[in-house]
């Protein structure tokens, strides 16, 4: 199984994603420069976090027009698994590979801390192996992670089971206090209708070793290993 990690000017979690995939999970992984138009022979793509193009204009707005994104869109349209993390999630929103939009955190502060997450959709290539009901401890690090969906879109996301992870408290309750950024319905991550494209603000790649504070992020990569390996 081969994974590709897209690298934009300003990506800064690309090496973390590479480390999580290759060194922790033994997945063959290569970097793909944003000017490449061919993804090569990959079974999955990570669009990593960072500040592509310095977040100029809007987070992800310029990166979505990088040449590689046409190939990513084609790959996604064919059902290829794509995971966008943090800025990667913002890029997937701007590219309309995922619905909704991202705004500045409600309290305007850059927030960097561990949050608790509850997975609500285990029918994606990145969440299939998350133990049911497990409260995941994963860090967030963003200034613009306030996911916004209007009433119609929220209903659609709920009806289609497109809400993948929500912020919760230590007991797994979804409360206003456990929402770190003001996101609609405490949404931390969503998927497209087919479920093959997933975007999330928290960083599973930063939580793959106990010495980093949590290894709960491994579930996302173990899911990819189990799901994608069995499909290829």
């Amino acid at each position: 199984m081969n994974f590709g990690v897209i690298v934009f000017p300003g990506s800064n979690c690309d090496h973390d994603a590479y480390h999580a995939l290759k060194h922790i999970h033994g997945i063959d992984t290569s970097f793909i420069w944003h000017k490449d138009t061919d993804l090569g022979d990959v079974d999955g793509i990570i669009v990593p976090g960072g500040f592509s193009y310095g977040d100029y204009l809007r987070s992800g707005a310029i990166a979505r027009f990088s040449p590689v994104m046409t190939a990513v869109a084609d790959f996604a349209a064919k059902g290829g698994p794509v995971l966008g993390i943090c800025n990667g999630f913002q890029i997937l929103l701007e590219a309309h590979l995922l619905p909704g939009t991202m705004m500045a955190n409600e309290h305007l502060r850059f927030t960097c801390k561990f949050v608790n997450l509850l997975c609500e959709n285990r029918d994606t290539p990145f969440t299939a192996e998350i133990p049911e009901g497990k409260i995941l401890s994963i860090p967030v690090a963003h200034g613009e992670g306030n996911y916004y969906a209007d009433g119609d879109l929220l209903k659609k996301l709920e009806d289609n089971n497109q809400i993948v992870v929500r912020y919760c408290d230590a007991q797994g309750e979804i409360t206003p206090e456990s929402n770190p950024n003001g996101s609609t319905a405490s949404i931390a991550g969503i998927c497209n209708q087919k479920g093959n494209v997933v975007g999330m603000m928290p960083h599973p790649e930063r939580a793959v070793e106990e010495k980093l504070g949590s290894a709960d992020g491994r579930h996302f990569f173990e899911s990819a290993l189990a799901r994608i390996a069995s499909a290829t």
Partner: protein
Amino acid sequence: MQVDIVITLRESILDPKGKASHHALENLGFNEISAVRIGKFIQLEVDTDDPAKAREMAAAACEKLLANTVMENYEIRIPDSTTT
């Protein structure tokens, strides 16, 4: 010719930066300012003298890249044409 674009958050979208600035203005005694909305100002230099064409070009640029129409409105102003 020059084209100015003003991008603002849609009315239905909470504007935390505007809200925080409004709060600070209130603290400074600007009690007659009842609301603040913060947006973006973008200036284009386009290679045409036809205002209609310039407007069309700016609108396409807004739709495609400059504005996120899910949450933002844009207004196109052509300073040259409004002064004549």
